[in-house]
């Protein structure tokens, strides 16, 4: 059950961020008054839903587990979000960014594991 919930919290974190950025991209893409901007509203709603689920699943997990145990799993979200941004949002992952992501992830794991 705990493993499922940790997985659910990861998926909803990643989906929430991706949808939010997708909505913001849509707003940036079309000028004010364009009907396509309305889609952004729906995507935004989806993102809020996903983040709300993640929020409550997170509190549920915190009631059972220590923050220090939970954090290393959440650290995976940085890598997952980078991969998904490149795949779904067509963001370019430069070598510098990948280096930074790996350094940050390694650091974060050390911070949470000690």
């Amino acid at each position, binding site marked *: 059950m705990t493993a499922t919930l940790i997985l659910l919290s990861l998926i909803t974190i990643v989906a929430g961020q991706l949808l939010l950025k997708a909505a913001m991209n849509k707003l940036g893409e079309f000028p004010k008054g364009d009907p396509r901007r309305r889609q952004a509203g729906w995507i935004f709603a989806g993102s809020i839903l996903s983040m709300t689920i993640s929020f*409550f699943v997170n509190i549920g997990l915190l*009631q059972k587990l220590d923050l220090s145990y939970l954090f290393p799993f959440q650290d995976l979200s940085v890598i997952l979000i980078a991969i998904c*941004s490149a795949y779904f949002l067509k*963001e370019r992952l430069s070598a510098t960014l990948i280096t930074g992501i790996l350094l940050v992830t390694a*650091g974060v794991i050390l911070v949470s594991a*000690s």
Partner: protein
Amino acid sequence: MELTAIPDKPEVKSLPVTHRPDGVAMLAIFASALTATASEICLKVGASETASHPTFLPWLGLSGLESKWVWFGIVLTIVSFVAWIRAIRVIPLSLAFTLSNVVHVFMPLGCWLLLGEAISPRRWLGISLVIVGLLVIARPFARLNEKLDNAL
């Protein structure tokens, strides 16, 4: 018969000023991370307080809502969220999300400074690694920003 009914495709206009990467967006990430840290601490305090309360669907943590700390946490989460939206309106998600990991620097430092908790050498090493990683990705971004400023 004239073909006047077909409207022109709306032209793709250049991005409005509010959608260009800027220093405010970087500050927004910082503010978002600070409030997120405070929120996480409040939520943990609230969740621990209410962990033993019986409730419907216990895995959702709804009993946490009985604690004022959880409500502080919710307000801080909303503030953090608004700042976050300001940031990712202009910064690519892969970059912004990595930068938001500055919370892992704020959190132990906050506990050290405010609560007097000790930080182990391993944790200091982790904090330094995070800071180095953040500098690696933030510096090219700052340069890009300068180029944009000069081009305008």
